[in-house]
């Protein structure tokens, strides 16, 4: 065999070495990784820097130092907020895990009547705004104006209220019931697709049903339960709306409500806000790392792709108890809050009593009719802005998600691993933390106080959710389908357009509508980044709750919930129920 080149014309016309590097594929993927890298990394770097900048006594200049961190641990209010955050997250996690696992087990593995019809309702809180839930529960169970309290007083002739959600327990209660679907979704998939032979073999050893459930079934889904619990813990720690409505006004501050006051309040101090964000981000980041690296890889693969039906457990008479339990959850998490909001929204003022003679649609006219001179700008602007942001944000994020998923799962090497990591980072940081980072990064640029900065914040924080939807389908679609198009003579871009994207359509659509829903109800990023004129829907609700009255707040909250439920309905019709539980 000769060692010299086998092809004569090679020396005659040496092709440019750069030509082979500049392909559609490399251009698109390089641009996408630079965009993702900059969007994710810049705010975090800015946050770290700003947390070490200390405002001097004049309030204008800054110097380097650790004083922000010292203040944080010396300030009585911030220290208490820190403790409250941990208490709320722990309590909400316990509540949500208990409810989520029990509901998932009832729906997936027992003969509870109507379980297939109940499941979509169990998931509804996932799509609604917890902030709206807090408003609703405030109107249900505030000491003086709570509908339930007033009813109880009238019915039993009580002097005092029986329920009070305007405290840390109320925050835990609302957060817990609203984040229950997160645990549910983590657990129900593996419960549903568990190989029945795993349980059957336990039964053949003589273990009873209950024993099998406790010793085989639940341990097998433990990693799923842990993952769900951690996500709830992290999401609760970053939740702003619920403690803002039920905690802060009554002396129960949390880290998020404190960050908020440092970002926009009268004594705004971005640097102190940055260091509080850093602390919160460090905690949540650690837990997400734990979940992603330690727990998620241990989720036992009980899926064998054989499409079997798991055994259903016959609960006997108890199945009606399970049914009642399931219904009770839907009542407290969906029906009562929504019904209460509707009731409140048609009263001119709300004092805890339904007064049929006073019913009015005036509140809706003020918050919805943007042509009316009586409109409240924060609300009507918010609706328009939120639709713009949700539509544009979901679309841009999904384009990014497609290219990034393609890079991660279709190209190998360092770039792919780095991008994979960058897609997890935003999940580790609560919206309010990331928003703080975006704020300090772009405060001196022209995008500050425009919709663009909100768009940037939304996409950075949430595009990983869209990316996961695309990636899960991309993993199921064989790479050979793409490769065979290249072999047939199609370029990378043609292959993407004619083969890859059509095959990913269900994932792209599911991701788009999920992001659309998330963006329509987004509060904790918007509350940091909005300014007059760029309010969003949830900011509108916040504004009404803070500066107007409960009926107006309830009216906008009802409008928001109706839109969200409509999206969920479309989502389920088109994407199917597996799209969510997969």
């Amino acid at each position, binding site marked *: *065999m000769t*060692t010299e*080149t*086998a*092809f*004569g*014309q*090679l020396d005659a016309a*040496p*092709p440019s*070495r750069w030509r*082979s590097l500049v*392909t559609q594929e490399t251009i698109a993927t390089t641009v996408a990784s630079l965009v993702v890298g900059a969007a994710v990394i810049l705010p975090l770097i800015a946050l770290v820097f700003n947390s070490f900048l200390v405002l001097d006594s004049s309030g204008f200049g800054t110097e380097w130092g650790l004083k922000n961190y010292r203040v944080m641990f010396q300030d009585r209010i911030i220290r208490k907020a820190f403790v409250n955050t941990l208490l709320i997250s722990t309590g909400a996690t316990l509540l949500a895990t208990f409810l989520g696992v029990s509901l998932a087990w009832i729906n997936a593995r027992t003969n509870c009547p109507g379980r297939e019809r109940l499941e979509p309702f169990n998931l509804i809180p996932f799509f609604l705004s917890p902030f709206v839930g807090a408003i609703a529960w405030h109107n249900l169970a505030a000491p003086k104006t709570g509908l339930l309290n007033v009813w109880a007083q009238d019915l039993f002739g009580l002097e005092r209220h029986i329920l009070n959600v305007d405290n840390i327990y109320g925050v835990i209660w609302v957060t817990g019931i609203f984040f229950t679907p997160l645990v549910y979704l983590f657990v129900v998939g593996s419960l549903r697709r568990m190989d029945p032979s795993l349980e059957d073999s336990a039964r053949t050893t003589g273990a009873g049903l209950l024993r099998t459930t406790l010793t085989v079934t639940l341990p097998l889904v433990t990693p799923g339960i842990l993952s769900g619990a951690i996500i709830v813990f992290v999401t609760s720690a970053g939740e702003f709306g619920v403690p803002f409505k039920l905690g802060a006004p009554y002396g129960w501050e949390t880290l998020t409500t404190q960050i908020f006051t440092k970002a926009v309040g009268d004594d705004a101090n971005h640097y102190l806000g940055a260091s509080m964000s850093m602390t919160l981000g460090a905690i949540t980041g650690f837990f997400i790392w734990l979940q992603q690296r330690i727990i998620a890889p241990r989720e036992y693969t009980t899926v064998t792709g054989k499409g079997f039906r798991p055994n259903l457990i016959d609960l006997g008479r108890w199945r009606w108890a399970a049914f009642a339990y399931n219904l009770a959850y839907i009542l407290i998490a969906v029906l009562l809050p929504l019904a209460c909001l509707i009731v409140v929204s048609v009263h001119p003022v709300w004092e805890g009593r339904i007064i049929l003679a006073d019913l009015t649609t005036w509140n809706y006219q003020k918050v919805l009719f943007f042509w009316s001179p009586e409109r409240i700008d924060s609300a009507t602007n918010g609706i328009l802005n939120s639709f713009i942001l949700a539509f544009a944000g979901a679309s841009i994020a999904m384009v990014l998600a497609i290219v990034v998923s393609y890079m991660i799962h279709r190209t190998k090497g360092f770039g792919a691993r780095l991008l994979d990591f960058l897609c997890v980072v935003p999940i580790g940081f609560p919206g309010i933390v990331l928003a703080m980072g975006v704020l300090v990064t772009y405060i001196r640029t022209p995008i500050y106080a425009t919709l663009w900065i909100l768009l940037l914040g939304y996409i950075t924080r949430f595009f990983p959710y869209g990316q996961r939807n695309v990636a899960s389908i991309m993993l199921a679609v*064989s790479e*050979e*389908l793409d*490769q*065979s*198009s*290249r*072999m*047939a*003579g*199609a*370029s990378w871009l*043609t292959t993407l357009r*004619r*083969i890859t994207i*059509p*095959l990913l359509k269900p994932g792209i659509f599911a991701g788009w509508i999920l992001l659309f829903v998330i963006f329509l109800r987004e509060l904790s990023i918007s509350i940091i980044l909005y300014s007059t004129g760029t309010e969003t829907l949830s900011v509108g609700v916040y504004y009404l709750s803070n500066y107007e009255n409960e009926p107006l707040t309830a009216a906008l909250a009802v409008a928001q919930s109706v839109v969200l439920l409509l999206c969920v309905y479309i989502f389920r019709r088109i994407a199917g129920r597996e799209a969510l539980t997969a």
Partner: protein
Amino acid sequence: MDRTDSAPRYLEVNGLVKYFGNDRAVDGISFGVDKGKFLTLLGPSGCGKTTTLMCIAGLHKPDAGEIGVGGTPFTSVAGRVFLPPERRDIGMVFQSYAIWPHMTVTQNVAYPLEIRKMDKAETGERVAEALRLVGLSDMAGKLATQLSGGQQQRAALARAIVFRPRLLLFDEPLSNLDLKLREQMRVELKRIQHEVGITSVYVTHDQAEALVMSDEIIVMSKGRIQQRGGPHDIYARPANRYVSNFIGVANLIEGRIARVSGPGRGEIEVSQGGQRVLLPCVLGEGLSDGSPAVLSVRPENVEALRDPDGGGPRLEGEVLQTIFLGNCLDCRVRWGDFEFKVLAPSRDRLRPGERVYLRLDPEHTLAVQP
């Protein structure tokens, strides 16, 4: 056994190296295929055969080496040439068939022609011809998802040949089919390839497939070529222990060349559990007097006789087990510590425990490199 390459062959692969991490998946292999021939890369999973194929296709970039077809360079690492896969004009059939589920059979097969902007009339003709060739004419309007595995396989083949590519690549295309269909498709694939006359490279781990279909076989292991040759050569004259073990069934005993008696002939000395014998054999490449070697003899070339006497040495042993296969008996015979696999005629009616004398056919007893 290697043919000396003077004239360049149609497909040329030269010094191909591909790393995965620190793993040398393909370790400097070179081979060629003549126009219209059918070459098979055969080896266990992880031997580098699919990686080699992917490099030819342009779906992997090699770390060193050159690939060219018909004088056109496709890849040359030293010359910084890399033709993207879509410009190589290669038809490929994938392991999963990769029939696009969102298109009909006709749309799938017409896709390469559409990409090449062929006019409608000719596209229709070509697609119909390709579908007829693979026997799918009735299925033209069906969605890909409505096809069975075997039909998807045929559609994938039609799509790969419809644009009359310069080269046809097959990546274990039959491995997802059940046994019966697989045996039928072997013959069918070979017929179609013969009919269209496109030079083909076929990757498989199934030795039977390789023997049935190929003009030439390359046996690979750990990224290197172990042997290349026609199916008959590979089966009858394995170059080393690895190949004789991988292709078919063979009795392999470690030994030493005792004597070289003539060109390609000699005697091998083997010993097992106190038994020691000199056996006349055919000498493989690179073996000389005294060099360590492995005796390789296939079960059908061993006779189990009840009579101890006769021409040539006989190995005395005990029948351990017999399995009735209809036309013959699959026997295990112990000689020393070694268990011989022997195919004996059924009429011999050998029984476990019986004393027999093994005669190894000297024409088919090989000494190969260890």
